[in-house]
């Protein structure tokens, strides 16, 4: 059994609402292991993004602790790679300069950074687009640039907040494959928030199901599918078992009943 990399312990967070305060997270706890690929699914508005913002240091929790490799930390700010549904590319920066953003923040020597960025861009099939502005790229290409920008910083944990949900299905399948391969190649730990049960099962080693607000961990599933590509994973005989079990957890009716 691999050791625990990040431990989320009893996190509480509420936001001021119109009349009462809204409790979003109510004592949420789960562990992320070294080189884990964990998906978090749950009903919309259950505070999945709030967990991310807390781990990334964008907001602080009301109570609870984060343990990073057994050391208590405020947040993993500066050590996480953050990807959202929006690609968050800077429109005034070229593809190359967007990829360089994180390295610039870290003060890496420009020439070395450019070499690394070019190598990464070409390994992700984006050579020739270095000087293009994001506006001129397709949605899938932009999200690939965002992925490179995230990976090149060599973060401890990748936080992916529905990164592919704005893309069409084909592009999504393709990028899932790119992500999975990159994660294997760079030995990354990934936390993926998604609405897509199918995506969660195809990509993850573990799936955490959250309950509605205030969120707690409702169930945890180890996904025992050892396929490298997400497309092959979908064809695995065990896939549909996990899929239906997770649908059941989320109270989604998977059998159409004629009556």
């Amino acid at each position, binding site marked *: 059994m691999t050791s625990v990399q990040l431990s989320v312990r009893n996190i509480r967070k509420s936001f001021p609402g119109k009349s009462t305060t809204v409790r979003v997270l109510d004592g949420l706890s789960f562990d992320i292991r070294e080189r884990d690929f964990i998906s978090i699914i749950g009903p919309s508005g259950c505070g999945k993004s709030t967990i991310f*913002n807390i781990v*990334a*240091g*964008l907001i602080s929790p009301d109570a609870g602790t984060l343990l990073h490799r057994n050391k208590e930390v405020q947040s993993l*700010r*500066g*050590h*996480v790679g*953050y990807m*959202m549904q*929006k690609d*968050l590319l*800077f*429109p*005034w*920066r070229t593809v190359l300069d967007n990829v360089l*953003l*994180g390295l*610039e*923040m*870290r003060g890496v020597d420009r020439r070395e950074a450019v070499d690394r960025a070019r190598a990464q861009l070409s390994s992700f099939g984006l050579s020739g687009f270095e000087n293009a*502005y*994001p*506006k001129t790229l397709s949605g899938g290409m932009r999200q690939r640039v965002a992925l490179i920008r995230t990976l090149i*910083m060599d973060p401890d944990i990748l936080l992916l907040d529905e990164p592919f949900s704005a893309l069409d299905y084909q592009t999504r399948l393709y990028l899932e494959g790119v992500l999975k391969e990159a994660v294997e190649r760079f030995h990354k730990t990934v936390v993926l928030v998604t609405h897509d049960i199918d995506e969660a099962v195809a990509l993850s080693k573990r799936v955490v199901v959250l309950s509605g607000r205030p969120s707690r961990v409702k169930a945890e599933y180890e996904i025992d599918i050892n396929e490298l590509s997400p497309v092959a994973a979908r064809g695995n005989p065990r896939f549909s078992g996990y899929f239906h079990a997770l649908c059941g957890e989320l109270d989604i009716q998977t059998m159409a009943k004629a009556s």
Partner: protein
Amino acid sequence: MSTITIDKSAAEDRAKPARGRLRSLDSAFGRGMLQVLAVVGFFVAWELGVRAGWISDFLVGAPSGILKVTYDMAVSGQLWRDTWFTLMEAVLGFVIGTLFGSVAGLALWYSVFVARLVEPFIVAINSVPKIAFAPIIILWFGTGLLSKVMLAISLTAIVALIAAYQAAKDADTDLQALLYSMGASKHRIFYRAVVPSTIPAIIATFRINIGFGLVGAVVGEFISSQEGLGHLIYNASSLYDLNTVWAGLFVLMLMGFILYHVIDMIERLALPWKQTSTHAHLQV
């Protein structure tokens, strides 16, 4: 393959007459010709009207007279002196005012407290027609170049300040969050995310402010001056010398026109990432 080609050209043949003759004028050359034609037509009609006695030469002036006056002033050098004087006032006022205003507006991003504190004062100052300050500014800064520059600054600075502050407030918070998660300081976030995203809005104020710069210069000259196109126009109109008034006005118009295009050029150079190909324009 061949059938497709035939079909296509046949379709084009049918479409052509339906589009009409107007479409063939819709090119850079065609539009330019129409524009020149309109201007020439206007002046010819004006001149003919004066010659025929339908339009009063005394109250309206005449194109031939305007040309003569302009030529005389160009030869004597007065036209160049006045134009240079007004241009300097307007451009200096525009540059200093816009720069000062933009920097101040951006700086307000740093402190929400200070921004909220000064907001009512900015609104109050902005609600006064700034041109009403002109007499005091002339009193304080004299009748020379400085007072007109100051007047132009007072007009342009507040516009730039409000636009820059608003744009900084509206800067994409997700991009700022991303930088923050990467461990960037507030300073870094300001320079990398906030400032670049405000540039389009700031450049948009250039267009408004170059006009205000000219307003400041000319109004200042109306009130008290020995030089400048505003001075020229004001003096000539009090002498019922309408041709000189028009000469001054047309030079001002030309000046504004050129300055506007200079800003257009600056925008294209400063915002390469904003440029779209014209093919993407939807023709409705």
